[in-house]
């Protein structure tokens, strides 16, 4: 699905090189849910930003769906993102001037869908999230949890092959965290490939696999044993159990 080979990112700050990511190799299989953990400043954000083409790499390769992506131009990446990659950040996911409905319809319209199709898709997603009533609200009128759920809906609007999330629950209380995670678990079960950055172990435990970064390098890559989960349990149950 997505493959990173020897990925390196070195920032130049005031002439000084700051290595943020130092040779990361990672393969994510289709349908896999990978959590990336690590202390603050370990290069997690930089890494997922590079996977989505938001940040250019210093060296290394990125392969998406069997095609090489790291050599794409800025516009090439933009087109790739609108077709295949959904993003959720910790803050500032929504376009402040647009209503919730417009925000969720935007990716579909950008992908060339008809306004009718975009609206249907938006109605479906917001209904799934229980946010139909907030469709005409401005993002500023939503709570943090609602905002993140709308962000997730928008990231999924074009049914992307890959969902990248950078601490999507980092700013939420446990109740809102639970709502967002419930949704993530649901789309994951429907076959969504997810790469999620978190430093919350409870969040990470939902994943199939946890990758730990330290100083820009992978120090641990461990699948989470399925047996840890209660058979038939959901992510939401786990959070409830532990939170």
């Amino acid at each position, binding site marked *: 699905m997505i493959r990173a080979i020897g990925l390196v990112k070195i920032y130049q700050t005031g002439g000084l090189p700051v290595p943020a990511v130092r040779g990361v190799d990672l393969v994510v299989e289709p349908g896999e849910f990978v959590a990336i953990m690590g202390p603050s400043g370990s290069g997690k954000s930089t890494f997922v930003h590079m996977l989505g083409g*938001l*940040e250019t790499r210093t060296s290394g390769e990125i392969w998406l769906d069997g095609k090489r992506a790291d050599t794409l131009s800025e516009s090439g990446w*933009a087109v*790739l993102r*609108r077709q295949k990659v959904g993003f959720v950040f910790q803050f500032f996911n929504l376009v402040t001037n647009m209503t919730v409905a417009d925000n969720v319809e935007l990716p579909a319209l950008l*992908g060339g869908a008809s306004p009718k199709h975009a609206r249907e898709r938006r109605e479906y997603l917001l209904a799934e999230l229980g946010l139909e009533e907030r469709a005409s609200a401005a993002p500023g009128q939503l709570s943090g949890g609602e905002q993140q759920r709308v962000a997730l809906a928008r990231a999924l609007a074009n049914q992307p092959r890959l969902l990248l999330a950078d601490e999507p629950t980092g700013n939420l209380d446990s109740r809102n965290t639970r709502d967002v995670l419930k949704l993530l678990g649901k789309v994951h079960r429907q076959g969504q490939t997810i790469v999620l950055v978190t430093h919350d172990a409870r969040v990470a435990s939902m994943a199939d696999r946890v990758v730990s970064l330290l100083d820009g390098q992978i120090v641990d890559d461990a699948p989470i044993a399925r047996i840890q989960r209660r058979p038939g349990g959901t992510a939401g149950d786990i959070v409830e159990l532990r939170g």
Partner: protein
Amino acid sequence: MITGVGVRAEVRWVRADLRARRGQALLTVIAVAGIVTALITAATLLEDGTNPWRGLFERGRGAHVWIHTKGAPNVPALRALGGVTDVAGPYRSAPATLADHGRKVPIALQETTAALPSVARPLLREGRWLDVRHPDGVVVEQSFAKALGLHPGSPFPVTGLNGATHTLTVAGLAESGDQGFYPEWTPGLAWTLSSTLTMVEPAPGRTESVTGLRLADAGYTDIVVQQAVITLRNQVQRVSTWREVRASMELDNRLLGLLLALFGLAGLVAAALALANATGGRVLTQLRDIATLKSLGFTREQVTRMLVAEHGTLGLLGIALGLVAGRVITAYALSDTVVVPLSSGPLVAITAGTALVVLVAVWLPAWRGGATPPIPAAPAAPPHGRLSRLARVALLVRLPPALVLGARDAFTRPTSAILTLTGVAIPMMMITIGLGCWATLDGFIRHPEQVGQAAALSVRPGDLTASEALGRAMADPDVVTAYPGVELDALVPWQTRTVRTRALGLSSDPYPFPVAEGRMFRDRGEAVAGQGLLDLLGLRIGDRVRMTIGGTPLIVKIVGRVIEPEQDGEVLSFGVDSLAAKDATPPQFYSLVLRPGADAGEVRARLQAQALEVDQAVNPADRLSVIRVIIVALVVVLALIGLANLLTASALGLRDHLLDLAVLKAMGLTPRQVMATLVTGTGLVAMAGVVLGGSAGAFLSKGLIDLEGRGSGVGAGIGRAPTPGMLAGALLVAIGATLLVALIPARRAARARVPVTAR
């Protein structure tokens, strides 16, 4: 294809953004519309002021060609000529003389109808039109009437060729696009009824017929004239066309043209500034949204395109609105002054110029927006540690914390500080330059001697001898000095045209020309020249120039440059004694310097009563008076733009401060102190901008106006800086307005509850 796809998404975003800031968008449109309106109005007024012919001709449905024939011509044949749409007349016309204070002025009487004709219609300005019940009434062409001091009701004693005098009465004054201005166009014209004409000139052989042809297109003039001459065979005595009429009405308008260009440029700069600031400010406040859009898959090109489309549309809308408003204003509000809308040349220039400026001004910030990295991160906040440390120091030494924090703010955000500074300084600079133009015009009026008009009046002897005229003029108590003068055209080698030479005063007692460079002439054979003449002949002070005046060769040495408002500065002046005696005596006229404080109009009336022909000098400032209207309009528009820029800047500052505000309040600053901090932050920079712009303008205005003067041929040396009082007033008003504008958002922010997180 990357482009094409996703246009709907762009449209959706633009619509949402416009909806979210209707007020701001409206302001942008209004600002641009205001500038375009001001430019159109100014250009129309100037065009009309410098070329009144267009308006008169249009309003009176003038005739392009006038044919003078011995008897009545074959009208159907003339009407049948290709391109002729209407025929005026034929009217009978007779030469006569008018007795004016003892001298005889040649005039032309022209027959017309009691009902105003539909073609070549005189435009009644004062009094009444002709009336069959008052056959002794005449309507006099206005410029002629002004020159002779005639008013409705004045007696109009006319002597026909047979020597009989008839005392007619002036019924009214009219202007016409078919008759040039007196004295450039002679003889003076009076319209009479047919019966009146017959009374003055009973002999049919002594009248001629004039017939006007109105054409579908002025471009047909030459062909129609040729055909008319052929059609009428040897009946034709003389043909005149609209070109000669227009030429007699045109002012030497190089200075006006240059001033208009200067103001146009100022307007364009203002438009660019307003838009760049509005767009730039908007883009800066929504960088995070743009980053979000890019993370969604908007390309750089799409973002740039979207922003150009949004803001460019606002600008173009403003232009369209301004064009309409300009037309409406000139058509309705100024309908008395302006008859013809702006001709297409300046209109296209203004439209294309502003459109270009709009697109460039919008494209820069849009490009910047497109280059935003796609990661919607928190804004780069200033280092908070430094803020609190500084604040603590300030509190410790009991400085008003607001001042310290605000001042620090100005230095830690150089980009936004520069934006504010230029946004305020440039309009302020242009306002000051406008005030400089105002001061220059005031200077013309207060010190006419500095623009070569030390003599307010000049008298021509007319029927008197020169010494009689001089004696009568000097007898007036208000006349101090009289300088004998002669104006002649000179042929200069290598020039296809003549130049005007003016002999005025004696070399030993020269007329007080305003010498800007070099010195006054002192000897025979020395001369001073206007900038226009120096440019025309490629001369410098110290050069000798050879010319022929009335067949006599003359060599003069140019010893100085004078301010020369006449003839685009293409005038050479020297003492009467430098001329050959046959050209110099008797003098054509005497230039009269009046006692300071004397009323030139009254003196003129007194001298006219002495049977003298008196001309009053027209101050260049009177001709340029329309400039004052333009200055006021531009100052208003510029001030609004400066304030709008400031509002954008303070809004931006506020956005950057959202996080700081929490810190400031947490530190224990009262809302009032928070407000003071914010006002200091923008206010200091804006005040610096006001002072900087004001001084730059004061510094530049003299040089800039001198540059205009030089270009127009009048010559450098006319420019003034705004008076200290004017400048101080402008600075104070600007600073007050600045602080007031900075206060509005600051007040709101200080009162608002501040979120702890950024959203």
